[in-house]
């Protein structure tokens, strides 16, 4: 083979695909950075270890063994089979054919054999997942927030993966009977070779080219599907676990702006009537009403979510028929970040108030107030997404900016403030029990 028009087309396709992908990843990055800054780079060795265990090692995936097992097949298959893409890239650019075959010799055949076995396992796993979603209809894939695009998205991904794997196998199969074959036949594709029996050498060659192009163009197209899909998790799962909250789950961050205010209130020397210093920025909003009030890790969490619904399946509120679904919280954050991002794009780089917000237009108060802060969702997530942090920030907005908590909660808080207990008992009676020992 030699350099020709095909290589120019290949190179052009590659460049265009990577350019579009980079542009869309850039937009996602911009959308994530809509969030406030947060420093979570402490304890780096622990973070690398955590990412290795949870993202690379899939340690939380296997908590549900069936899904975990088949997910690992796809994950390992995806990572390893893509090594072959390296060869495809070289061949495509330089007009070579299976350039690694002769230098690697027997190792090459073993490697392709191994990839073929993986490809079959990936196909099996994808079929199992399609079955679980569409035939078995596991409840967590059919909650309200999954209607429409999210369900289609899940199926598209699985079908595309099956198509890509078949392209790979058929490419090898069509080559099996070729006199000019540089290697093979291979362990799986030899059984598919009969599809192409009776074809002329020319025909076999054309078939091989068609599957080769299907495979690589499919990969490039799939790459560009990622930024619009839940499947983006294959990229963000890694930073998401690196930046995960490593504190005990019960430790909720203390709002530092509040700390400053409270310290001032408690300082006997503070002047309560002092005017704010000149040029002082307007105080930050307490809590979160919109995505810009969240921090960037909250928004990255949303883009890392693959909508598996383990959080929602474990949520006590959701299990008892309440509206709250932690997965929906994450999907809403992503949807809103996308809307804000599009708004910025349409308005030459600055956000024009659209009169909408994450609160009320996406996430209802009823959802937020149904949370028991039990951390089941956080525990369940295979990539350590924290929906609870977002729920808490939105509650803070409702309570501290709007004073809009339910009457019973206001009563509880008044009691805490007045008599140091959530009920109306005098603080002086706290130790009454001690006389009844």
């Amino acid at each position, binding site marked *: 083979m030699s350099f020709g028009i095909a290589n120019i087309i290949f190179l052009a396709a590659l460049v265009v695909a990577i350019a579009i992908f980079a542009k869309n990843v850039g937009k996602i990055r911009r959308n994530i950075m809509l969030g406030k800054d947060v420093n979570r780079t402490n304890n780096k060795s622990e973070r690398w270890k955590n990412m290795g265990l949870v993202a690379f090692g899939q340690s939380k995936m296997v908590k549900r063994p069936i899904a975990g097992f088949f997910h690992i097949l796809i994950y390992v298959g995806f990572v390893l089979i893509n090594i072959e893409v390296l060869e495809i890239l070289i061949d495509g650019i330089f007009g070579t054919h299976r350039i690694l075959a002769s230098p690697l010799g027997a190792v090459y055949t073993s490697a392709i054999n191994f990839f073929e076995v993986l490809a079959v396992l990936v196909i099996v796993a994808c079929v199992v997942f399609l079955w679980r979603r569409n035939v078995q209809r596991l409840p967590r894939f059919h909650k309200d927030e999954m209607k429409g695009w999210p369900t289609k998205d899940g199926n598209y991904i699985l079908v595309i993966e099956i198509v890509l794997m078949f392209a790979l196998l058929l490419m090898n199969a069509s080559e099996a009977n070729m006199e000019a074959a540089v290697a093979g036949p291979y362990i799986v594709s030899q059984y598919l070779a009969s599809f192409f029996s009776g074809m002329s050498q020319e025909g076999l060659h054309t078939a091989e080219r068609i599957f080769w192009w299907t495979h690589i163009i499919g990969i490039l197209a799939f790459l560009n599907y990622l930024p619009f899909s839940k499947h983006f998790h294959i990229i963000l799962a890694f930073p998401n676990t690196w930046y995960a909250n490593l504190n005990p789950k019960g430790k*909720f961050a203390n709002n530092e702006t509040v700390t400053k*205010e409270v310290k001032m209130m408690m300082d006997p020397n503070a002047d309560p009537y002092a005017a704010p210093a000149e040029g002082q920025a307007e105080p930050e909003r307490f809590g979160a009403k919109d995505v810009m009030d969240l921090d960037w890790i909250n928004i990255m969490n949303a883009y890392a979510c693959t909508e598996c619904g383990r959080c929602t399946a474990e949520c*006590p509120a959701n299990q*008892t*028929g309440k509206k709250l679904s932690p997965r929906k919280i994450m999907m809403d954050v992503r949807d809103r970040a996308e809307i804000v991002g599009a708004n910025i794009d349409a308005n030459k780089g600055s956000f024009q108030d659209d009169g909408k917000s994450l609160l009320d237009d996406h996430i209802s108060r009823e959802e937020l107030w149904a949370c*028991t802060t039990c951390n089941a969702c956080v525990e369940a997530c295979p990539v350590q997404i924290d929906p609870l942090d977002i729920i*808490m920030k939105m509650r803070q907005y409702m309570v501290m900016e709007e004073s809009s908590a339910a009457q019973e909660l206001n009563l509880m808080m008044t009691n805490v403030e007045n008599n140091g207990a959530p009920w109306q008992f005098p603080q002086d009676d706290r130790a009454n*029990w*001690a006389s009844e020992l």
Partner: protein
Amino acid sequence: MSQQSIPSMADLMAQGKQPDVLFWVGCAGSFDDRAKKITKAFARILLQAGVNVAILGKEESCTGDPAKRAGNEFLFQMQAMTNIEVLNGYEIKKIVTTCPHCFNTLKNEYPALGGNYEVMHHTQYLKDLLESGKLKIEGGKLKGKRITFHDPCYLGRANGEYEAPRKLIETIEAEFVEMRRCKSKGLCCGAGGAQMFKEPEKGNKDINIERTEEALETEPEIIASACPFCNTMMSDGVKNKEKEGSIKVLDLAELVEMAGDLSS
């Protein structure tokens, strides 16, 4: 039974003494009739074991947990800083509490505001007392009783403590049976996140009923818990199922006390 009473920090201070550990009673433990029984059981055990312990008494105030979980960070931090002033004023080093919510808040959220203490949940403290031989149980009155344990979220998932309560159940030689969802997958009782103080959102079931049904599947004689709020929720659930005649909801402090004659 010891005739001693539990001193307040103010009393000890006046005598120039310092306790080894402060018993943080919590609001439920101070005021709720059911929770007060847990408080008293734990206090009696501490005195029996000869622990040098004190309470804040009238100087104790809500940790601020329900305010924080309801979203009122202001009120939480006001409570926290006031409590920290009191605790630091008495130079408290070690705290034990029967409430996982107080435990979590004191342990995890006070340090950043200037309150640094060694904080233990009472199940951890009891386990230590038994393991170190400072407390012994004779008699095995609960031997063979069928007990299941409900993990409080703020002890278990929130702080990773699953073993201490189970160790106590083992010590009293009960027949222990796990619920289907336990430890890190334990189902919430429905009280956390300030839900205790409000009506639940609209749904098709109350969370405590869901959890009680699961507990009942284990056919227990006793549902053990380690949180005053879980205790209320599970007790309500058992009453709802009209099983209160045959199934008791008890705190681990109560179980340890009931298990036999305690000696130190």
